[in-house]
């Protein structure tokens, strides 16, 4: 079972108090604020999941919420992923806004039936009579030596299904803003967090209505020479790689974080590719049928004439995640692979 590696007290330091300012929060604290604010704003919002209440959440995202909102709205569940999600579907169909936490993305596979066959399809297969305003949150990602059943990245699986919205926030500000948007949205949302990011700090707008719309990519770094699209944690890894590219190779990379995969802000990506004429997509998940495979197809379909090199992909290795620390580290992308992939797009031109 996954447990938190990081149990520091929640310390929010306001750097610029008052309206329009920001404060520094960890990713998990930003998620916690989003849940707390939305639960205060709307009585129909409640959360349920394994060990989210008394235990305060395996990754402490739900810290303090049981105490604040009580057992009706913060519900510890048995270990029954498919039924927890299905119960969320049913409750959403009668007007509630459940937020279900699954302990890891790997465990969400047990709930695949309810996520795809029910949540994603109910509106369509019943002729639009009902909506399913459900959020299913789950963390993913490698780096904590949790081996082949706790370390994967499955956004590509959920991206596959029409009817779902898919969010992959990489910063505390996006984690908060996208989660608030997900809760307010009338569609089922698969909200994929990243275990590595929970402890990362970032500036978050000090505003209860800080909502990040789905379908709006963020340009993390501007550049003229190459477009790097980074998914989930890889948006941050791509930013570091871009720094190295500028310093070591005089290549100015534009880094784009799509933030949501459904809807996908393809226009921002295409506009960047039309400017830079080169593109590398970075994801932690597997290569076959991955987010990058899909995005590369879309880019070459729509911007083929603008490309000076094939679209490059940097992905996790095509293996179940190993436990061994050095093996695990080489099984998902780091800056050097991204730098190498970018540099190779400049060859043979």
């Amino acid at each position, binding site marked *: 079972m996954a447990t938190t590696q990081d149990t520091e007290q929640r310390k929010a330091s306001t750097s610029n108090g008052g309206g329009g300012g920001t404060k520094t929060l960890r990713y998990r604290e930003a998620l916690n604020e989003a849940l707390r604010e939305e639960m205060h704003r709307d009585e129909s919002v409640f959360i349920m999941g394994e060990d989210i209440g008394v235990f305060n959440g395996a990754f402490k995202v739900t810290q303090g919420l049981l105490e604040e909102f009580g057992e009706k709205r913060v519900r510890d569940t*048995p270990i029954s992923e498919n039924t927890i999600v299905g*119960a969320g579907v*049913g409750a959403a169909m*009668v007007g509630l806004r459940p937020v279900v936490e699954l302990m890891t993305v790997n465990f969400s596979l047990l709930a695949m039936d309810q996520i795809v066959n029910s949540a994603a399809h*109910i*509106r369509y297969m019943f*002729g639009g009579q*009902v909506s399913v305003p459900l959020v299913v949150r789950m963390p993913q990602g490698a780096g904590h030596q949790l081996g082949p059943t706790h370390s994967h990245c499955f956004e590509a699986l959920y991206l596959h299904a029409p009817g779902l919205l898919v969010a992959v926030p990489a910063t505390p500000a996006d984690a908060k803003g996208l989660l608030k948007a997900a809760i307010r949205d009338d569609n089922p949302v698969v909200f994929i967090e990243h275990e590595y990011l929970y402890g990362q700090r970032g500036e978050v707008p000090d505003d209860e209505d800080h909502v990040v719309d*789905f379908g709006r990519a963020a340009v993390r770094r501007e550049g003229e020479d190459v477009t790097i699209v980074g998914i989930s944690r890889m948006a941050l890894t791509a930013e570091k790689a871009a720094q190295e590219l500028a310093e070591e190779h005089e290549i100015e990379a534009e880094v784009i974080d799509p933030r949501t995969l459904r809807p996908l802000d393809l226009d921002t990506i295409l506009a960047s590719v039309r400017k830079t004429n080169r593109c590398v997509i970075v994801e932690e998940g597997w290569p076959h049928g991955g987010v990058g495979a899909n995005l590369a197809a879309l880019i070459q379909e729509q911007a083929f004439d603008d490309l000076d090199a094939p679209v490059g992909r940097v992905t996790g290795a095509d293996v179940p995640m190993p436990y061994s620390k050095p093996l695990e580290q080489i099984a998902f992308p780091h800056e050097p692979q991204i730098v190498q992939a970018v540099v190779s797009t400049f060859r043979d031109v």
Partner: protein
Amino acid sequence: MGENQLPEAAVAREWLSTMTLIRRFEERAGEMYAKAKIGGFLHLAIGEEATIVGSARAMRDDDYLISTYRSHGHAIVRGTNPDKVMAELFGRVDGCSKGRGGSMHMFDLERRFMGGYGIVGGNLPIATGLALGADYQETDDAVLCQFGDGAANQGTFGEALNLAALWKLPVVFMVTNNQFGMGTALARHSAVTDLHKRGDGFGVPGMRCDGMDVVDTYEVTTEALRRAREDRQPVLVEAITYRFRGHSMADPEEYRTKEQVEEWRERDPLETFAARLADEGMLSEDDVKEIDEEAVSIVDEAVAFADRSPHPEPESLYDDIYVFGDQVRGWYTVDERAAGVHRGERERDEPQDGARREQFQAVVDSQDAEV
């Protein structure tokens, strides 16, 4: 049969009428399937009418019913116009799910029929969520969740019963034990064949009813719903019944003998109930005939309605996948230059003409020609 108390004459007549309507509807659906008016799978509930009507009549209007892929009768018993059920089977735009769901996916929100589900056992978690919703909103609505004996072996059975009991949710789980999970007989798929006993380990007491007897089914379900609603005690009810037809239309029925089917047919829920009402002097032979003629005429009209109803427009292919709002305007791309709702996919934004329109029309024409 015969031990329990008959309801008053008007109620008994309505029960017989509805069971007869479901029977005639199902028979006609089978005929329409043979004529290729209906595609896909067609699962008929002939033989199970007393289970459907007896249990649904124990419900209040505000209670939720949720069912399986064998659910034409469940829609009808809740009051969905048979026209819309037949139109759904025909895949037409006036079907209760606009031709999107078909036989396995009937739905009627207004009458709180929360759907037929095509995944065996997939509806139990949702039923638990409906009950959670009713409880959370502090109503006294309850949920009746029907599923087959085959579903009792899915993981969701144990998961949902446990969760419902743990959270004291107002839900009755009713296993329609028709003796077969598709072609696998009860004793060949379940180590414990007294399915109503299976809830004990989850804190869900079991009850059993004669699913061939509408009165017994009504009485047992009424008590089960009372316990769920008033005592916040989920109950597992096992209705013993039998389907006279195959699992679906594509079923050669090699797993059972004609003799067994005949044995059960002697307990036909319509005939036995009609005979009992006649014995009690509540119904004449003419009444039974009248009820039957009325059912046939409703079904005639349903077929005519379904036949008249148009196919969904090809432009509706992408409708109702998402709820569009301020933030979700499309799912493929967000385009600042596009006005209004932007569904994204380039082909969707253009009329469905050319090859796709031709293909659509060719299918419509061939369907019409087959009749």
